[in-house]
């Protein structure tokens, strides 16, 4: 297990992260066992539907992470406290990972079920826009050097970018021409690859969802801890620069006074 800095204010978060990391090893094995062995094959799709046990938690995790970034963005604009900028940027980094995994696993599931890797269905189109929007956030941060300015613009961007999330979520519920199945909170009569979950499938989905969300939470905490250490290192670098400047200036001052 990677050593996590446990100094100062980060110590409690570091302890929780370490405990979560340890718990995730058996929990992931259990989720894998349930997804591959415990859950029975689906009536029409057969074995390939099992991808769904990884696809859904990744996508739900990305929505939650983008929501965390949205809330942290608002908190930053209200308080100007850099810790909210750290939470917002870290959530978006991990959210992009989760959204990317959700999109790729979805494309792999679609190939045998829809007979195509990709189609410009409303759900797939909105999720592509979502991913590109958040990649734009990363580029925006990379383009600004001033930390206060970067944090302010990033917070505004994180708040505005969140408008994509409800669009993605409701694209399968409100638009008629989508073929993406709706698992919770609605039905889509045009869905291709819809499934009726039996009790063992529901238990498996529940376990995979809890483990998946815990996994991305673990990544978020580790990313926040890393960002705090990066900030500490930046302070040390600045102190060293100051110390070097003083060392170089001292002989000049002595020479001038002499």
């Amino acid at each position: 297990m990677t050593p996590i800095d446990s100094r100062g204010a980060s110590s409690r978060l570091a302890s929780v992260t370490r405990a979560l990391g340890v718990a995730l090893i058996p929990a992931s094995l259990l989720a894998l066992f349930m997804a591959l062995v415990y859950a029975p094959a689906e009536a029409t799709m057969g074995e390939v539907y099992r991808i769904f046990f990884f696809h859904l938690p990744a996508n739900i995790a990305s929505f939650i992470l983008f929501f965390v970034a949205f809330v942290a963005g608002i908190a930053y604009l209200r308080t100007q406290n850099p810790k909210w900028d750290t939470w917002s940027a870290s959530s978006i980094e991990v959210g992009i990972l989760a959204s990317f995994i959700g999109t790729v696993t979805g494309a792999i599931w679609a190939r045998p079920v829809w007979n195509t890797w990709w189609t410009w269905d409303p759900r797939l189109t909105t999720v592509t826009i979502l991913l590109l929007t958040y990649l734009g956030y990363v580029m925006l941060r990379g383009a600004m050097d001033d930390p206060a300015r970067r944090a302010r613009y990033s917070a505004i961007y994180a708040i505005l970018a969140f408008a994509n999330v409800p669009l993605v979520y409701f694209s399968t519920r409100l638009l008629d021409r989508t073929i993406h199945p709706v698992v919770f909170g609605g039905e889509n009569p045009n869905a291709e690859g819809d499934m009726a979950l039996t009790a063992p499938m529901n238990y498996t989905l529940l376990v995979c969802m809890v483990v998946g969300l815990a996994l991305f939470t673990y990544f978020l905490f580790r990313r926040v801890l890393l960002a705090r250490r990066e900030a500490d290192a930046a302070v040390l670098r600045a102190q060293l620069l100051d110390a070097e400047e003083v060392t170089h200036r001292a002989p000049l001052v002595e020479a001038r006074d002499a």
Partner: protein
Amino acid sequence: MPDWSDNGFYLILGLLAFWVPVLGYGWSLRSRAARLTEEEALLREELGQGR
């Protein structure tokens, strides 16, 4: 165990599409933390020498 002859290729691909990025990101966080530890030690050493 699943019947791997029934679209097993896509199932394996789906599992890899989840676990490879997850393990890759975990490894990247780990290596970034290790690099920071080294850099911090070096900076502290240099600051100590400067005083």
